């Protein structure tokens, strides 16, 4: 890995008396876009706030661009942050908002304004410079917040669910722009989200967080193909991965790997085959049609649920008896007690 842009080294953090981060190790390479993914309450924002210095650490070190900043106040860390609410100053114009960080650092007024204009152009909000936040739409505010973050050319960008307040179409559009911006700037970015699609689309690498602990760090492909834990496996992907006891009603086809006694097998809905003549018998409970695809919710004998994703045109009827088949090559095996991945 090249020189690190941001390193959390065994960082713990607490809110009041409750520990919200447990010895988190995380290294973000320079120029990398890392997405921190996790359900709400997992401590995602705390990771950012600790990196920014808004939250004190109770243990561990924080390094930015090779400097140990653990004891530095936020202003000295040379990071910038985009808040979920954007945190624009309502009483300042867009230009003043963008230039704020420069002006409080005593950058000459004209230089600050020029750089603010340049930053605004970069994110495409140069036409809004004289407006005030109250007059902007959600997407425009988002752009202003981005411009404000990048005007100072910080070592690390911290983005706290910046897309969550936008409607779906805008979110998709901004997602692409954000990725393009990152590629253009080559900046180090840490992006927090609970949206797995956003994470998969945007990230160079994803760190999955659960209850203040890192479950897995890897490229989107690694996260998708080889989830390290049951949690990651089920959190990424929609509908979530099917999970059954290894010796249960459904036996995958092909050569089984060596299995311990207590194991679970997991397979994504895409891997399920309803057309095979063999496999475990199941009853179709309900069907959700989402455009070309249909999700078929089934119950195996013994009551275990399974979801299958099939082309809409080939969906079974509700109440139909089908046979559920899956292959070992599409199956993940987890330890039933620890939830950790066993093979491969």
């Amino acid at each position: 890995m090249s020189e690190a842009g941001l390193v959390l080294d065994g960082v713990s953090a607490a809110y009041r008396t409750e520990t919200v981060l447990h010895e988190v190790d995380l290294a973000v390479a320079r120029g990398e876009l890392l997405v921190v993914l996790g359900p709400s309450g997992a401590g995602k924002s705390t990771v950012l706030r600790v990196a920014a210095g808004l939250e004190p650490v109770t243990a561990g070190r924080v390094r930015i661009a090779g400097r140990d900043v653990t004891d530095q106040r936020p202003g000295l860390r040379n990071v910038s942050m985009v808040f979920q609410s954007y945190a624009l100053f309502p009483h300042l114009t867009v230009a003043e908002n963008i230039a704020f960080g420069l002006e409080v650092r005593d950058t000459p007024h004209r230089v600050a304004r020029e750089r603010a204009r340049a930053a605004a152009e970069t994110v495409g909000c140069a036409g809004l410079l004289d407006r005030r936040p109250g007059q902007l739409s959600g997407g425009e505010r988002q752009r202003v917040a981005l411009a404000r973050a990048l005007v100072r050319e910080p070592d690390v960008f911290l983005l706290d669910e910046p897309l969550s307040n936008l409607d779906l179409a805008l979110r998709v559009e901004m997602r692409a722009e954000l990725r393009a911006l990152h590629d253009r700037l080559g900046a180090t970015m840490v992006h927090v989200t609970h949206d797995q699609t956003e994470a998969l689309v945007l990230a160079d690498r994803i760190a999955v967080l659960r209850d203040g602990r890192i479950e897995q760090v890897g490229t989107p492909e690694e996260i998708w193909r080889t989830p390290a834990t049951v949690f990651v496996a089920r959190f990424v992907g929609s509908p979530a991965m099917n999970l059954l006891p290894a010796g249960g009603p459904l036996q995958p086809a092909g050569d089984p790997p060596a299995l311990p006694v207590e194991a679970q097998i997991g397979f994504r809905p895409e891997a399920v085959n309803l057309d095979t003549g063999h496999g475990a018998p199941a009853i179709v409970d309900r069907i959700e049609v989402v455009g070309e695809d249909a999700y078929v919710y089934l119950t195996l004998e013994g009551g275990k649920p399974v979801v299958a994703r099939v082309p809409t045109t080939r969906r079974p009827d509700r109440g139909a008896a089908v046979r559920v088949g899956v292959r070992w090559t599409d199956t993940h095996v987890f330890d039933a007690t620890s939830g950790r991945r066993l093979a491969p």
Partner: protein
Amino acid sequence: MSAGSEAGPRAPGTGAGSPAGPDARSRRQLALMLAPYLAGLVGLVLLPALVTLALAFTHYDLVRPPAWAGFDNFTALVEDPIFRIALTNTVVFAVVAVPLRVLLALGLALLLHRRTPGAGTARAAALLPTAVPEIAYGLLWLWLLNPLYGPINQVLRVGGENGLTALGRTPPQWLTDPTDARAAIILVSLFTMGETFVVLLAARRALPRDVYEMAAIEDATGWDVFRRITLPLMAPVLALLALRDAIASLHFTFVSAFVVTDGGPPPYATTYLSLFVYQTGFEYLRYGYAAAATLVMMVLTLAAVLVQWRLVRRYRRFYPR
């Protein structure tokens, strides 16, 4: 009032949610709900005030029937040295005490709005003097300010000799020196800014937290944060409070001047308009004249209010909703 960054609430009843507004039955009920207040407002304030203000154009001594006087009372006011002094005293008080009160309240709100050891107690302490009934408060200060035996001057004299302070100076002559007495009245008024304090405390707490975190990331210093964020965000509330205080300052000088200094030390050092009106109206039986002074007082207040209101309006444009 809160200057939050998110879209503000719609005015209910006027919003798109209820295009027809309340129906007739509801309107009747709402009118009934408003009725007691309207009766009180009109019957106990507006009509009596109109009567008094009409009497400003008469010679009226509270005893004989009023006689039309035109603008006599007003021309007499212009030439009345005591009125001029009272007016000056009032304006000086308002100009000095109102900003001091608001600034003190703001300082306390900013100091105490967060959880720190002692902050809760300090908040309560800052509010307590406001809870003391006016007359009792006047009595307390009458004693505190006693030039020889009052605790304030006794403390000031600690370490000094022969009735002087440790610095070898005479302690302030609160009740006998005109300047010191004016300062005393201002001091007395400073302790009762509790209402302003509470409102500012609430306003400060309503400010969005992430804006401050943003500023911290930008390494804005305390002064920058205060000047560029806190102050502008709280400015509308501050302006309204200053406005209210300016109006109220015409009234809250009354009891302290009435009980503590009795308008003195001579000549008229703490005779404020409120006391002037009371004296001329009720002690010298020149009610028409006092009414004229009241009218002048109200016109001045109104002018001050309008000026401040325009400033607030100008500021309000920053927050289109």
